[in-house]
Structure formats: structure tokens, C-alpha cells
């Protein structure tokens, strides 16, 4: 008797391909549909690999818990149990064939990979405007999805929910993600240098204000997605947040929810670009 053949869907988010393998043809189809815009060809020896086991997970309401056991991360939630080794880039996941569990596992694994590379996932919408990426972050209800709904043609939406940020030689870049929020639409698989991070507040008019560096770090840390109560990881993220604030303008964007806010963002992006060019 032979073992069922494993099928591999290589999902590349943020320039980091992870080979997702399964023996279940229906789950393989789900992977391909859900991450259609983010599939790449699987290398013979992928740098990162997650092996899915679809045996039933007993139902539970347990919140996500990420803990470390040596080099291995143990990631559990009511609907999945996963193990991930950052050194080998290999992991296993036991879950039901549920796309929401799948998204959650991928987000957590990416956050662990990024933490070691000076990047992070941010609870933020992001878009490419005037050739440069902008992040729009804030508490729930601050207007992330509203901003993406108001985006005029010519704006490339990277995500309305979870932004992907990585360092570059001269700053930071944002990447599109398939993780959708209320917009229920995956982002475009594109990338661009980051011109600014805006913390959103709704108000009677559009205005952009500077905020102090410590306040920017405080707000950034509040919105970075990290799941592990691990001192080493938090120290590394705080260092990354400070570096980010030193390189990327962080502003408060008070906006009235109509399309004119994108004119304000476009004008401000151009002015930031001019300042950089004359620096």
C-alpha cells in the first residue's frame, strides 16, 4: 500500500515563499483558490515548508497561544495546533480544512520569520500611491477599510487589514497580502518603498500632523501583530519599531470620509518625496 501523494502549493507573501504541503486534494484546491495571486513555483528544496495534517482538531474556544520550546515554536488555538522551527524553516499544522485557521497559522509563521529579519506585520491598510507605499493604521473603527473603499482608480491596494513590512537597504517596503478584512478582497501582490505611516482618526476635515518619535513607537508597538510572550522577540520588535520610526515618517491623519482624503495623502507623499530629493 502506498502513502497518498503530497501536493505542494508555494505561497509567496512579502517575497518569502512558504511551501504548503497536503495529501488532501480538496485542501490543495482551497490553498490554490485562496492564495491564487500569491502562488509561485515550488523550488526542489524550499527554504520554508509547512506540512498540513487535516485530522480533526477537537472543538475548543482556546485563544491563540505561542510559546517557545528550544528552537521550536508551539502555536495553538482552539481550531489548530502547529509547531514551527525558525532554524530549519519547517513546521507542521494540524487543523480542520478551514481557511480562517489557515490564514491565522500563516500570519503567525510570517510574523515569527519577519521578527528575525527586522520586519513585521502591522494591523493596517496599505496602498501604493504616487509610486510609494503608505500604511494606514489605527484601532478598530478608525477607518482602515473606509480608506481602502475611498481609494480612487490608480491606487494599488495592498491590503485593508494586515500590512507586510520589511526593511530595505535605505528604508522599509510594504508588500501586498492576501489577508483581507471587511473589504473581503485580497490585496494586490505588489511592493513599493514606504513613504509614510499614518495613524488614522476621523474628523471634520483632512489634516496631517506630526507626532513625537516616542509616541510613534508606542502606537506602532500597539498595532504590530505579535503573538508570543517571548522577551527576546519583544526586545527585537521594539528595536525594529525604533529603527522604523527613525527612517519612515509617522504622522496622524485626521480625515473626513470622502475621496478628497486621497488628494491630501497624494499631496503629502509628493512633499515628502521633494524633501527627500533635496536632502
Amino acid at each position, binding site marked *: 500500500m502506498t502513502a497518498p501523494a503530497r501536493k505542494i502549493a508555494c505561497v509567496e507573501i512579502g517575497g518569502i515563499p512558504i511551501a504548503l504541503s497536503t495529501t488532501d486534494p480538496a485542501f490543495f484546491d482551497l490553498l490554490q483558490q485562496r492564495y491564487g495571486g500569491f502562488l509561485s513555483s515550488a523550488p526542489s528544496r524550499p527554504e520554508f515548508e509547512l506540512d498540513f495534517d487535516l485530522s480533526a482538531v477537537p472543538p475548543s474556544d482556546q485563544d491563540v497561544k505561542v510559546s517557545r520550546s528550544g528552537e521550536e515554536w508551539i502555536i495553538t488555538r482552539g481550531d489548530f495546533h502547529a509547531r514551527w522551527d525558525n532554524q530549519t524553516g519547517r513546521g507542521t499544522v494540524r487543523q480542520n480544512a478551514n481557511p480562517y485557521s489557515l490564514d491565522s497559522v500563516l500570519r503567525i509563521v510570517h510574523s515569527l520569520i519577519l521578527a528575525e529579519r527586522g520586519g513585521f506585520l502591522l494591523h493596517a491598510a496599505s496602498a501604493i500611491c504616487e509610486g510609494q507605499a503608505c500604511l494606514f493604521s489605527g484601532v478598530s473603527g478608525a477607518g482602515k477599510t473606509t480608506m481602502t473603499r475611498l481609494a480612487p482608480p490608480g491606487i494599488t491596494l495592498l491590503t485593508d487589514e494586515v500590512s507586510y513590512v520589511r526593511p530595505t537597504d535605505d528604508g522599509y517596503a510594504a508588500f501586498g497580502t492576501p489577508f483581507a478584512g471587511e473589504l473581503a478582497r485580497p490585496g494586490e501582490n505588489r511592493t513599493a518603498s514606504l513613504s509614510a505611516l499614518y495613524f488614522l482618526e476621523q474628523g471634520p476635515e483632512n489634516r496631517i500632523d506630526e507626532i*513625537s*518619535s516616542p*509616541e510613534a513607537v508606542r502606537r506602532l*508597538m500597539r498595532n504590530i501583530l505579535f503573538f508570543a510572550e517571548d*522577551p527576546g522577540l*519583544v526586545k527585537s520588535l*521594539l528595536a525594529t519599531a*525604533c529603527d522604523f520610526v527613525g527612517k519612515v515618517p509617522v504622522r496622524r491623519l485626521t480625515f473626513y470620509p470622502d475621496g478628497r482624503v486621497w488628494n491630501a495623502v497624494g499631496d503629502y507623499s509628493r512633499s515628502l518625496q521633494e524633501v527627500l530629493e533635496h536632502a
Partner: protein
Amino acid sequence: MPENSIYIARSTSIAARALAGEMMVMNPTDSTFFTLNEVATAIFQAADGQTPLQEIVRDRICEQFDVDPEQAQADAKQFVTELSTHGILLVSDQPLRGETP
């Protein structure tokens, strides 16, 4: 050892970073985040577990900042109590082992 001394040390499990003259401190276990002003930063940085709090306030605060010594001692105790309840500082009536973040 002075009588009624309080010794303070930074917890080894916290993340701390100085930026623009302020110290940002985070406890990963409950995600509490503090931004310390100049005076609080001076106390935090001097929390080596070996120097009594009274001495830290006398030598690092009263010498460098324009403050009333009695008020400074009272404010420092209140600050230390608050940070210790969040696991940022360890407090003892005996010298402690600390960590340099």
C-alpha cells in the same frame, strides 16, 4: 546597609529602548508599554539592584534636576511601586541581581 533601604532592579524579561531622550519599556507578558520621562529614565537606568533608591534619588535626581528632595523621594517610591506592579522593576529590602537592558 542603610536602614529601611529599598533596592530596585530592572526585570530581565522586559524590553527597553531609549529614543529622543525618553525610555520606552515594555513587558511582553501583559503587553504594558511605558514611556518614561527624563527623571523616571534616570531612576530606571540606575536600578542596578545594588544602589538603594534613596541614594539614587539623592545622587541622580536631586543633583541633576530642580526638585524638592522630600517630594522627589516620595514620587520615586510611587513610580517604583507602579512599575513593580507591572513586573518592570523588581523591589526588595535586600540587594538584588539586575540586568542592563
